[in-house]
């Protein structure tokens, strides 16, 4: 649902000179299928073995009881993510400025709660607006 919602704001995001990327531990063969199915126009990047998510300090290990439950649903992370330890990133959305500094961060351990994309758009507008104001003053 979040991917479709992000797709819904992509043209406005690009109009602000910004880009969206989605990082997922899923292997490329799965991102390719999903990307096509949802007609996404931003990139889905495979964060193999959660290397980047680790650097953002978002990684946790599923408890044993949940691992077994996921396996019973057919969500085998060892197969889908090459992730035999059953680690996952908590959902997070960041807005990073051109200098590489995080200017907005929405991190929630409850995976059923997500920030509205309209809010991300507002953050980007503030960011690009404030940058324009700075360059005028300079």
């Amino acid at each position, binding site marked *: *649902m*979040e*991917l*479709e*919602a*992000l797709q*819904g704001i992509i043209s406005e*995001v690009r109009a602000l*000179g*910004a*880009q*969206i*990327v*989605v*990082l*997922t*531990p*899923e292997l*490329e063969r*799965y*991102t390719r299928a*999903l990307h096509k199915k949802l007609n996404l126009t931003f*990139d889905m*990047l*495979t*964060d193999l073995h959660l290397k*980047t*998510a680790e*650097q*953002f*300090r*978002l990684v946790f290990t599923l*408890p044993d*009881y949940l691992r077994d*439950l996921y396996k019973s649903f*057919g969500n085998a*992370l060892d197969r*889908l993510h090459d992730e035999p330890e059953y680690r*996952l990133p*908590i*959902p*997070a*959305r*960041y*807005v*990073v*400025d051109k200098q*590489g*500094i*995080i200017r*907005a*961060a929405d*991190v*929630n*351990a*409850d*995976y*059923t709660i997500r920030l509205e994309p309209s809010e991300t758009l507002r953050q980007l507008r503030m*960011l*690009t607006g404030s940058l324009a104001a700075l360059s005028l003053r300079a």
Partner: protein
Amino acid sequence: MARLQSRLDEFKKAFKSGAPPYNAEHEAIEKMHRATAELKSSGIEQQALKIGDCAPRFTLFNQDHVQVSSSDLLRQGPLVISFFRGHW
């Protein structure tokens, strides 16, 4: 399009009801709630990078097996980075 969170809430309600199409078992729902509560109290949200931190750079393969680097993207403008656990 309805707000993202209201659509998520709708899904959650349907899943928790135990009714079709998900037919979630009560025990399974309990386990998922317990795991989310434990994760919340683990302090992981506080450990995660936050506003003002320098975003780690990355170069990763996209869905078409093309390498994409965050440095290249940032040269063009701001970047929204969304972490997605998977679509399963």
